[in-house]
């Protein structure tokens, strides 16, 4: 039985279609039920919905053999997993955003609000800028408005939220998309199944 962790939400549903096309269908998955675990004995596959940021943990700890996670999560948590495919879905970018007309003053420590502390720290270390990280769990956009931070590091998809809050992207750190990941141990024991999925999905 192959255990697959899917990110809850629209991306997860689209990703499931790829698995279905690769020969691992589980029709009950999309029937609108509130169940979280779905199994298809015949296709030897079990799917479950997980919070997108948790998928990597399920896979790293072996509760799921494979899963789909955003590159943002993989960069932030650095789970010890295989990254087998770039699915070219859920595309967005990790970016630095600031209030319009913001000018960085390098005499002061830069205050950065973000959910992605590691990514922010590594980015600013790479350009040699001294920063103070303010870790937030949501609504990052309000931090500069309230004076909590100078800039934010966050995911930007269309930029609408930023615009509505009078912010703009000043630097793109890294492009993001959904990746197929696998547990390193599971890969050894379920190699044929996982390889089939990779082969079909990369077509």
């Amino acid at each position, binding site marked *: 039985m192959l255990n697959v962790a899917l990110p809850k939400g629209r991306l997860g549903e689209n990703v499931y279609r790829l698995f279905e096309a690769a020969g691992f269908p589980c029709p009950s998955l999309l029937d609108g039920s509130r169940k979280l675990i779905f199994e298809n004995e015949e296709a030897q596959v079990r799917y479950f919905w997980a919070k997108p940021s948790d998928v990597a943990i399920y896979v790293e700890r072996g509760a799921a053999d494979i899963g789909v996670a955003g590159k943002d999560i993989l960069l932030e948590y650095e789970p010890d997993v295989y990254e087998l495919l770039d699915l070219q879905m859920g595309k967005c970018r990790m970016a630095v955003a600031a209030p319009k007309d913001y000018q960085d003053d390098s005499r002061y420590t830069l205050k950065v609000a973000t959910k992605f502390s590691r990514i922010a720290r590594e980015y600013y270390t790479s350009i040699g800028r001294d920063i103070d990280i303010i870790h937030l769990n949501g609504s990052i956009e309000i931090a500069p408005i309230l004076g909590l931070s100078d800039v934010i590091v966050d995911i930007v998809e269309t930029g609408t939220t930023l615009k509505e809050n009078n912010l703009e992207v000043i630097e793109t750190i890294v492009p993001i998309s959904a990746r197929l990941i696998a547990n390193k*141990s*599971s890969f050894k*024991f379920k190699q044929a199944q996982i390889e089939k999925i990779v082969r079909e999905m990369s077509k």
Partner: protein
Amino acid sequence: MEFNIDVLDESEKIIFALRTLYRSQGYRRYRMSKFEEYDLYSRNKDFLVSDSVITFMDLNGKLMALKPDVTLSLIKNNKDKPEEIQKLYYNENVYRVQKGSDSFKEIMQAGLECFGAVDPACISEVLMLAAKSLDLISPDFMLEISDLEILSFFLDRIPVSGDVRRELLKCVSEKNRHEILHLLRSHEVQEQYGQDLIRVLELYGGPDHVMEGLRDLCAEKGLEEEVERLTRVISVFRESAYKDRILIDFSAVSDLNYYNGIIFRGFISGVPEEVLSGGQYDRLMKKMGRKSRACGFAVYLNKLQGIMR
């Protein structure tokens, strides 16, 4: 003295079985009876599984460490005899912080080391003992073998800085083909280098499945000697019961500052991470001023809780 074996719990049984196995093959026990100075570990920090070490001040004022590792101490306290082969095993508690944890844990570890004139026959023996150790824990295991000499050839020819090289190595360990290509493209490196590296990575699976393709690729690049040595080392499994438990996989990497040549990792079905890891570490020996070559492995007994319940 008599005692009933039922008083032992599963992990104790495994420890005694491993010790019996290693002894039967002529390995001598090493006991880490004293503490080492912190300096020994801080000089070789990257060799340690976790870089946090418990330190304390000894009565003479020296800064000491509560054993985070056994191998370094073993090298330090063992006389360098490069012409002979010395075989040692150990079974000790070590103190480490595991990934994602914020506290130290006492971890039972067993392992063995071969020092001296380590040749392919000796590496074969260590590999076979690694397979037997895994089999003692569970017959449903896989032993994954890589050769850093071969992998290094494909990495070293790529003209990038040390930082990018480290990133590349991480991609290799993740089987991350798309990121390798992306990384090389963004540093304007010839695509052929990336394609060759990916070709090596795609050669994984059982030796019967992999070796022919690897021989072809290595012949193209003038690596006949390297592939010949790998073939010789793994030939020990050809007629063995473990034939189908061996995987060649170049995504298995270790720190290239310490390790060289053959490295390997063991997995047990149902355990999400490696339970055994080892390889040749001539570079570490050299760093510590030894002329001996070395090869060994450790079994992480703490990771077996899940299957013992």
